[in-house]
């Protein structure tokens, strides 16, 4: 179970550790998780990526496609562009998100719950909304185009701006979970020792949040590298790796070359996995069994700056969203700004009309509930299960992969795997079920990292104590882990819900005649030149997601009253 006992066990070879029923249970769950990710992620991806070694007729060509790809003139440029925009985005997002999360969790500023809701705004709506807002604000006809100083948003700076907006919630979620629990005794001790605030921050707060910081950075970096939606709309001809996949697959319909670029894009996943292992080695549980939950006391010197930072960030997020909400009520930007409700009469623009909205709600609800349960239980089995079990390593790796897989690649992989005539799972093809499965897998990593961050903050002593008292682990899980982690589980639930409401890149290849989600309808309306109608449907999605988030906050507060009394 932990590292220190290992040498002892090895020194006494005669006494073999007996596998407890708890351990067996966790092993079984690990096994189920492994099979699930194998079927829903590894097999589909492999069946697509194998195409990298074939030509269009399906005969094996070895590394020829790679040779062609490496000699593409714009390749090095694309790779470099991907990396530097991702690095800059990460460097901007992480401090911002950290400060914001710090304010939410470690200060006594007012209105925290409202900031919690606003923080998610960027992922509550399809990516078209910020893209439209940026055009309305900073485009060549934009309201604030003077601020651009003659530069254009169509290029790297537009990409970085939009990515910062887009990645902020993921980073803020992970960091606010990382910062939400801390051992108050450490702070008391530090204060008693007259450590300066800066020193406390550097030696207590930061190390406690280290794992969260690493995860958040990896997530942001990978999100930027693999996202093609933003560079496609706002990047002009600024080439990045993700748009290279788009060109190969959608532009040239060359699945084989698409698979090659998809493989190259998996590199960040491997990097993420290594970093995660590294951070895992350095981790220490911040919440030991004897911990006293840290509760910030009001202090103006910290609360007022925290409030100001949160206000600033929140205002920026609100303005971007507000512009496109306004955009959904106007007739035609920028030549006819009279207001109208016609844009919400979706049947005028898309035969499915409002139906696609209800379909999206259904899809997202199923995804959220099945997904959150699955993700949390699997994360728990990994964190508390036998660390040296055969499956733990591969399973851990599989959980980091989805983040690095561009939706486009995942969508195609699903076609090739689930549509194969010999696959009995093909029964779900073209139905809502495949969209659900795809959405759970597509957004698995952020959910998993949130769960892991929450579980790692609990001392394994809880389980050890239960085990010595012969309390079965599922009871400890239900009575201790679950209630303490409930806020994190709610976060995962809502994250999955809103992600499924807004996702486009993978499901655009998978929806059937009766299962077109609203997020896809948004893209179609925008392509057809109906920007206002597209904005309107995006706003409906936003409103639904926001309702979900707000009900989570309310439910969370109610639950907290019953389950987190110990925190006070």
């Amino acid at each position, binding site marked *: 179970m932990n590292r220190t006992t290992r040498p002892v066990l090895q020194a006494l070879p005669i006494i073999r550790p007996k596998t407890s029923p708890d351990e067996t249970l966790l092993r079984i769950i690990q096994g*189920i998780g492994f099979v699930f990710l194998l079927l829903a992620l590894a097999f589909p991806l492999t069946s697509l990526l194998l195409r990298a070694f074939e030509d269009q*007729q399906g005969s094996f060509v070895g590394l020829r496609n790679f040779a062609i790809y490496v000699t593409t*003139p*714009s390749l090095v*440029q694309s790779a470099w*562009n991907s990396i530097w925009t991702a690095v800059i985005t990460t460097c901007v997002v992480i401090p911002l998100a950290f400060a914001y999360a710090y304010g939410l969790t470690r200060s006594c500023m007012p209105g925290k719950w409202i900031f919690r809701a606003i923080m998610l705004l960027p992922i509550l709506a399809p990516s078209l909304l910020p893209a439209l807002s940026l*055009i309305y604000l900073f*485009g*060549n*006809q934009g309201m604030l185009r003077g601020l651009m100083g003659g530069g*254009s948003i*169509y*290029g790297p700076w537009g990409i970085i701006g939009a990515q910062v907006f887009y990645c902020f919630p993921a980073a803020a979620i992970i960091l606010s979970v990382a910062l939400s629990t801390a051992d108050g005794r450490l702070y008391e001790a530090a204060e008693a020792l007259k450590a300066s605030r800066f020193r406390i921050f550097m030696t207590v707060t930061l190390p406690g949040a280290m794992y969260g910081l690493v995860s958040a950075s990896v997530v942001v970096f990978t999100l930027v590298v693999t996202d093609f939606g933003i560079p*496609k*709309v706002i990047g*002009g*001809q*600024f*080439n990045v790796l993700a*748009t290279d996949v*788009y*060109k190969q*697959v*959608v*532009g*040239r*319909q060359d*699945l084989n070359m698409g698979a090659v670029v998809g493989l190259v894009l998996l590199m960040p996943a491997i990097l993420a996995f290594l970093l995660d292992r590294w951070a895992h080695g350095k981790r220490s549980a911040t919440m030991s069994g004897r911990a006293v939950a840290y509760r910030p006391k009001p202090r103006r010197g910290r609360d007022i700056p925290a409030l100001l930072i949160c206000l600033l960030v929140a205002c920026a997020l609100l303005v971007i969203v507000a512009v496109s909400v306004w955009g959904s009520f106007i*007739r035609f930007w*920028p*030549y*006819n700004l009279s207001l109208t409700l016609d844009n919400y009469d979706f049947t005028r623009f*898309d*035969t499915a009309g409002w139906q696609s909205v209800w379909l999206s709600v259904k899809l997202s609800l*199923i995804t959220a509930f099945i997904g959150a349960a*699955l993700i949390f239980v699997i994360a728990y089995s990994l964190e508390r299960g036998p660390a040296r079990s055969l499956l733990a390593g591969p399973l851990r790796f599989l959980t980091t992969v989805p983040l690095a897989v561009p939706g486009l690649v995942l969508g*195609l992989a699903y*076609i*090739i795997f689930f*549509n*194969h005539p010999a696959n009995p799972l093909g*029964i*779900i093809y073209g*139905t*809502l*079920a495949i969209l*659900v*499965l795809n959405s759970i897998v597509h957004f698995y990593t952020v959910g998993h990292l949130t769960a892991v961050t929450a579980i790692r903050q609990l001392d394994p002593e809880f389980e050890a104590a239960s085990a010595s008292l012969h309390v079965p682990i599922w009871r400890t899980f239900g009575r201790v882990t679950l209630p303490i982690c409930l806020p994190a589980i709610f976060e995962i639930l809502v994250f999955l819900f809103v992600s499924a409401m807004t996702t486009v890149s993978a499901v*655009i*290849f998978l*929806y*059937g*005649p*009766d*299962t077109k989600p609203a997020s896809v309808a948004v893209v*179609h309306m925008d*392509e*057809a*030149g*109906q920007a206002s109608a597209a904005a309107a449907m995006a706003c409906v999605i936003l409103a639904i997601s926001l309702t979900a988030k707000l009900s989570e906050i309310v439910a969370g507060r109610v639950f907290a009253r019953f389950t987190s009394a110990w925190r006070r």
Partner: protein
Amino acid sequence: MRFILFALVFLGLAPMAEAQQRTRLTVYTALENEQLAPFKQAAEAALRDIEIAWVRDSTGVITARLIAEKANPRADMVWGLSVFSLLQMEAQDMLEPYTPRGAEALRPNMRSARSPMTWTGMDAFVSAICFNTVVAQQRNLPRPTTWQDLLDPRFRGQIVMPNPNSSGTGFLTISGWIANMGEQGAWDFMNRLHENIQQYTHSGSAPCNNAARGEFGVGLSFDMRSVTLKNQGAPIDIIVPTDGVGFDLEATAIMRGTRNLEAAKRLADFTVSRTAAELYGRFYAMLALPGVEPTVRGYPTEFAQRLVNANFAEIAAARERLLAEWQRRYDGKSAPR
């Protein structure tokens, strides 16, 4: 876990219960959204026992889907997709050979040359210029009437066109130039045009949409694109250049491996009928069936003469090479202007 499996199976089976009496044909298409309802209505009125279930997306996405689904085709038919996509699928042996009843009446260059045919054309759409008159006035841009006009230095940094490596519309545009000016002439033209290009977009609809929003003065696109924008009050003119424009066909085909071959054949018969052609004529000016008067308005009378004489099979065969050459010349230097 059992619950999940149950839910998955349940969700999978639910849609199969409905619509048993009529044959349901899954039709993949890249038609414009507003065309879907009238097309479905007309076909279902003519063929009482057939129901059409559309899957509509952009040309690139729908083609990629069709090719990825090749091992086990889900579409029974394709109705309204670029002929270049169909030729690509023909090369991969994905189309069911069938000559729809009456297809011989179609213009010879707008139907498959094989016997039996693998695809039949519906109508032609042409590359065109979306020209924002308000922006033009502000920036003093002359109104172009030919492709050559676009080389005027006054257009420097004012023109947006789709990247042919990302968008079918982009390829349509350059293939028109190649058919018109010869390959060398077209590259020379594009070299000079490159100086005036502000941006190569990944989406085929973005240039016209952005020209309509006044982001740019000139967007290269195709004719149909601008109608919706104009109806909403965008100050754009659609210009079909007089020095020869490339065109693409919207076409129909039956997918090899369809589970509803008989019904698909009957729908294919309908798609080449006069009733169908009149329907196409409400949206497009150049129809595959001669003798049908298009009712769409706003096209010049001598429109047909502006179309370049394109050999689709030849262009489709050279596609890979042309795209690679284009990428080498223009895509590598992505320095933002």
